[in-house]
């Protein structure tokens, strides 16, 4: 699996590149700003592009903008945004338009190579991955109104884990459920959120998006 990555901080950039290579990924190139990242994506067409949010020259949200441009311009390239910001606003603005093949993780995750590589693979497979910390905050937030109000607490737990990017198997392990029971919950979630027939990964993405919309940024 091929990735490119952009971060203005050299230590993080090079460290992450080494980490990923050791984990068996092919790092096709690194960049230190958004224009560099866009050039890399155009030239190398990686499976996933990893980017920081705040980069030179303006240090605002050029990484996020670049991620959105990549999603629009290269639909087959996934994006993973790594950030220090625990704000559902950023995650939301990333996935709102094109939720497939996109993810938002806190930079803390670089210390757990397992969850990072797992997220990268899910994004390549078309899913939408949101950092568990953000998801937990959204779950804990009282504003679980709208379509989510109809979900049972257990269904909401399942949906939150789906948003975090867990596979069915992972969810079963975490919640001590049989695969069959989980299938039932997931089916109920799709039905209650009015998500029609579609490929499985696609339905999951829509469910996550609904979750983000209802609980997160307005």
């Amino acid at each position, binding site marked *: 699996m091929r990735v490119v990555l952009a971060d203005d*901080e050299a*230590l*993080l950039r090079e*460290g*992450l590149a*080494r*980490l990923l290579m*050791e984990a068996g990924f092919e790092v096709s190139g690194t960049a230190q700003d958004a224009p560099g990242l866009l050039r890399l994506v155009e030239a190398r067409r990686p499976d996933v592009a990893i980017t920081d949010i*705040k980069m030179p020259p303006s*240090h*605002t*949200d050029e990484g996020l903008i670049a991620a959105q441009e990549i999603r629009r311009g290269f639909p087959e390239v996934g994006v993973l945004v790594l950030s*220090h*910001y*625990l*704000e*559902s*606003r950023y995650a939301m603005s990333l996935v709102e338009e094109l939720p497939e093949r996109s993810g938002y993780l*806190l*930079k*803390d995750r*670089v*210390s*757990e*190579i397992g969850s990072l590589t797992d997220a990268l693979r899910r994004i390549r497979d078309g899913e939408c991955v949101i950092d568990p910390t953000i998801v937990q*905050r959204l779950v*804990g*937030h*009282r504003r679980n109104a709208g379509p989510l109000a109809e979900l049972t607490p257990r269904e909401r737990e399942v949906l939150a884990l789906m948003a975090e990017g867990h596979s069915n198997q992972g969810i079963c392990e975490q919640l001590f459920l049989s695969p069959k029971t989980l299938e039932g919950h997931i089916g109920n979630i799709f039905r209650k959120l009015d998500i029609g027939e579609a490929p499985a990964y696609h339905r999951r993405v829509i469910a996550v998006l609904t979750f983000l919309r209802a609980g997160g*940024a*307005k």
Partner: protein
Amino acid sequence: MTRRTILTLLPVLSAAAITVVVARRQPEWALADSTGALSVEIAAGLALVVAGTVVMSRGPDSLSGPLLCSAAAAWLIAEWDNPGALGGIVFTLGIGLGLVAAALVAHALLVHGVGRLGTTAARVAIGGVYAGLAGLAGIGSALVNDPGASGCSSCPPNLLHVADAPDAVAWLDRWGLRLGTVSLMVAVVLVIWRLWRASPAARRTIAPVLLPGVVFLGLVVVHQVHDLRRGWVGNDQLDDSLRLVESVALFAVALGVGWQRLAARRMRGRLAGLVVEMTGAVRPGGLRNLIASALDDPTLELLYPFEGGWIDPAGRERTPPPASEMRGVTSLVQDEAVAAVVIHRPGLLDDAGLIEELGRAARLAIDHERLQAQQRAQLERLRAARTAIVAATDAERRRLERDLHDGAQQALAGLAMAIGVARGLARDHDAERLALAQNHVREALGGVRALAHATYPAALDEAGLAAALDVLSDWQPNVELGALPVGRLDPALEASTYFIVTALTRTDSDAMVDVHVHSEQSNLVVDVRCATAADLTEVEDRVGALDGRLAVDETPAGETHVRVELPCV
């Protein structure tokens, strides 16, 4: 009556008494040829001295008061050039100063209201009048005139007489009259020129004195031309008639001074009335309108001194324009300090008396408004300082947040990553220790993240107040958000409103805090209701910096309700 007034009036009253006696003793030699004419003459003299006293009481600097008083005396003394004079002193004064009244009146008219002779032409003209009428034809002629020798056996002795030279007397009288008359004509032109040049408001003030003055001087000119043809000052029928009309004109001058005084008092009364009114509800600029209408100049402006510069009545800093043909700039001085400057139509305040009158009449109001303006300017300066402090605080918060993000957070993330790599390579016990270290680093990252957010939330600049408050409620679950403003506001206003809300919602308890922010007319209104009162120090500073209002009360439910109103820029 002051001592000075009595000292001024007494000599003139005495002179009037002497004049009556002299004219009665030798009526055929008197200039006033009848009791009626004499009455008019005496009345003119007395009225003029009263007018002079009034002018003097308005300001000791004014030269025209003493000049008018002297002219009054000189007018009466002219009758003493009479064989019936009570003695040598009276007679000598009569022949020496008999003609000087016209010179004094001309001088008074040219300095009246301005305090001095403004131009060289005026100085030369007045000098010529004095030299001719008091010098050559007066004292000069008296020095060589022996009335006894020239046929007046009943005349009292001339005390000035040093030699007897009838030809010299005739020569001095003729040339004195010529010089005096020509100079007087110039003086008349100058008085008319002064009237012509004055602004309408100033003209209204000085015309009642200057117009009869011009008539008087004109009559004196005619009179002297008549005498010149004869060669000496006499008292034929025409002389006596002219003398009578001159007396009437002089009386009118005195009346003019009185009228001027009344008009000034009326204006002061108007100003005083409005000053009383203004103490009730003071509006900045109220005094300006008042003075503008009193002086009939709608473009008039008032500025007050403030810390080396100038401010308008609203307390805004201003720079007075340089005096030019377009704008006149006049300082109002009180107690040797400039209390205000008046910017007005050129020429409006050329009359020193008018400025004095204005300063006197509006003194209280000017003091009052100046203090108000200075207070406003000080408040404005204080507010600007607070604004600067708050802006600096916010800039510093932004900088700190960026430093935390780019520094500590990045470094900790790098550290977490390095530990992750090491952990992958380590075995058993080491791996456990590294896992522990990794947890600590992650905790530290969480702590720094919370600190960075509290320092300055990224959402505030990027997405605005509503988004930032929304994120705040993610961090502080006890914050219950109600209505929030739609769209972006001024960045400084957004930042201040945000930090006002964080200050008000920073409570120790878990009790819910209700936050509503909405626009109301041109204000942004923040309503916060909570069970416990928050510390309001930071809120007060920020509200003050934005010129807003803060109100704290208690709801019927016993909650504290804080309402903040901030003007939208």
